[in-house]
């Protein structure tokens, strides 16, 4: 680039980027000079003044560069597996959930179902149905977002004291992030199911799977989850709705230590069968790895980067690096996708789960191009998948330096959603998601694609602009 003493565009043939009137770009073409035209459209209604304020914020560019460097600098290592009671200090009546804060009164069916199941799991009630009164009264129980405890949970995301958690750590800073163990597909607590077999599986996970994994992780040493994510993307996983390669690589890393754990052979076999039979097992490592990376960017004044997108089944919320712990929320949307069995759109609950943390970090829908099969959730095509990743490039700050996509010539995953770019282009983040039944206890009914509600981005933009003016 030309410094003050350089001559910049006087040096060579002009190569033009044109935004606005076509006539001016046409005139450049008519003079045999190359021009790349911007498909400019007016920004989201009412955002022009705030966008100008942020464009003029002297902190923004450097703050976003710092936020991006912080995110890309995190190495997420699986260092331990422990019960929530021990690592998060949860008592029997404490429950974490996905998404922004919410009370029982506004909680959706699947979130209620998961809370009811978890209450039974913790022995607060004998029958999950009895928990309704407990939560309605609110005595002896508490509900808080996972995100407020450095944790993330898929779908309902309910975490209670006896559940075991993956513990991920960034060795450079010691910062940690947590996530529960994945239960598999079908009738599972995270989709709001609480039938006896659901609770039975959870008890097995706490009594057999968790301790076995702890022994294995401690024996084999930290597992480089960020590194596995790098490899997964080369193998057709986008780490939200496809985690097949990641799950098998985790198994490869932990199986020897599991076998050598000295625990009963039947238990080890059951655990190996359980993990190997659940393509989504790795999701619960991908998510906290993304959480750990994004938490590194929290609280950077002036940064317009989204550090969390999360849904509780009622509200969709985002948090932004430059606005502290504020949530900007709007109604969670219904996913567009395909349904299991005889279920249809009328059975589906609005969007739920912390798993959109993967998209926030550049995976999932943002890396759709590396997992084209996912596009078929909405009857799409391979070009759609490539187009989605490229489109997400329009609203992100950078391309990941380590997560790359072979089919796009190893272009980096589009990373770091920029609130200003979303408002300028009107392009909403594309999220891959599972769909929970809207009635408590039903479980999964399908999977598909979903977007955040548009209005939360202008709301975040206004808060960012107010902060700039306040500094002014």
């Amino acid at each position, binding site marked *: 680039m030309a410094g003050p*003493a350089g*001559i910049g565009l006087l*040096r*060579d*043939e002009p190569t033009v980027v044109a935004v606005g009137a076509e006539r001016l770009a046409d005139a450049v*073409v*008519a*003079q*045999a*000079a*190359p021009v790349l035209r911007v498909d400019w459209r007016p920004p989201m209604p009412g955002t022009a003044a705030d966008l100008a304020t942020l464009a003029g914020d002297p902190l923004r560019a450097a703050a976003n560069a710092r936020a991006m460097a912080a995110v890309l600098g995190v190495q997420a290592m699986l260092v331990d597996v422990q019960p929530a009671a021990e690592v998060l200090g949860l008592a029997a009546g404490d429950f974490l959930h996905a998404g922004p804060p919410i009370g029982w009164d506004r909680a959706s069916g699947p979130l209620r179902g998961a809370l009811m199941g978890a209450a039974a799991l913790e022995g607060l009630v004998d029958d999950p149905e009895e928990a309704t009164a407990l939560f309605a009264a609110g005595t002896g129980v508490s509900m808080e977002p996972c995100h407020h405890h450095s944790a993330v949970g898929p779908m309902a995301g309910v975490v209670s004291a006896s559940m075991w958690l993956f513990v991920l750590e960034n060795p450079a800073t010691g910062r940690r992030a947590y996530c529960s163990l994945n239960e598999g597909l079908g009738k599972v607590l995270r989709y709001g199911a609480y039938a006896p077999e659901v609770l039975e599986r959870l008890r097995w996970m706490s009594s057999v799977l968790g301790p076995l994994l702890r022994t294995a992780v401690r024996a084999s040493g930290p597992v480089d989850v960020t590194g596995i994510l790098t490899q997964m993307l080369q193998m057709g996983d986008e780490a939200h709705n496809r985690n097949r390669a990641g799950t098998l690589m985790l198994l490869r890393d932990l199986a020897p230590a599991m076998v050598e754990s000295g625990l009963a052979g039947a238990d080890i076999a059951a655990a190996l069968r359980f993990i190997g039979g659940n393509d989504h097992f790795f999701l619960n490592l991908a998510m906290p790895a993304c959480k750990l990376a994004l938490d590194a960017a929290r609280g950077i004044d002036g940064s317009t980067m989204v550090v969390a997108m999360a849904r509780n089944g009622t509200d969709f919320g985002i948090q932004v690096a430059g606005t502290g712990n504020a949530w900007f929320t709007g109604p969670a949307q219904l996913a567009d996708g395909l349904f299991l069995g005889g279920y249809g759109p009328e059975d589906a609950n609005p969007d739920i789960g912390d798993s959109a943390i993967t998209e926030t970090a550049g995976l999932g829908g943002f890396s759709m191009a590396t997992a084209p099969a996912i596009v078929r959730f909405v009857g799409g095509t391979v070009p759609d998948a490539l187009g989605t990743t490229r489109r997400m490039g329009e609203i992100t700050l950078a391309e990941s330096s380590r997560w790359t996509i072979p089919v796009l010539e190893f272009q980096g995953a589009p990373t770091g959603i920029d609130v200003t770019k979303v408002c300028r282009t009107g392009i909403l983040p594309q999220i891959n998601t599972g769909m929970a039944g809207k009635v408590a206890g039903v479980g999964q009914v399908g999977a598909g694609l979903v977007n955040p509600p548009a209005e939360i981005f202008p709301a975040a933009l206004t808060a960012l602009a107010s902060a700039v003016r306040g500094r002014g």
Partner: protein
Amino acid sequence: MPVRTALAAAASPWVTAQLAGPRRPAQVLARGRSALYLEVGGACVGLLARAAVRVPIGLRLDVGEVPEPGAHVEIGDGGCALHEMDVRVVRSVDVTVPRLPGLAGSALAQLLLPGRDARVDFAYAELPATALAGLAAGEPEAVRQLLGRGSGLTPTGDDVLAGWLVARQAAGRPDAAVIDAVGSCVRAATSSLSATLLRRATVGETVPEVRDLLRCLARHGVPVEELDRLLAVGSSSGAGLAIGVRLGLAAGGAGS
């Protein structure tokens, strides 16, 4: 009846002047995906797609590949008529070297020491050391030893000579004896394309990469990136031009 389409081009004032006058047939001299060279009346002009080396005798087109010339090519009326395509010059570009404050070439000489770049070493190896030494001293005899020698569409010896000529122009010390030698020998000794480029070099016209390098030297800079870009020109042309510029800016010769 084929529909004729118009294509805009940017070119130097000299190229534009070659296209003036009545329509007359031109001969296709050389043709590739990114460049098409035409000859008319002993001079050569080129149609250049985006990827082509931007030689000073070119009509620069904003296209990926040069169009089909077809059987009959004509130039005249300020343009060039190919099969189903009319190319017109709509923009004038500067292809001349900037003025240097004297012989400011030491920064370049440092960058061109042997062993630093294989392309430069290869170009040195292709040419007789005595000819290079002669050129550095401004001896017209060196012209005859270099013309047409070496590999490439423009022989390496011609590239060195072209670099030398434009460097002398930039330094404000054109060398009449060498220019005369080029003028009298060039037609017989080398290709028509290379001969035209050499004639244009005698008045200081060259590729943008040489202009950039000289601008950097004019600011007393060290042209590391500029030299990188120049060495990437053609297969051996960039190295030949760089060596020529270096020799042209070395002390010695009639002008010094």
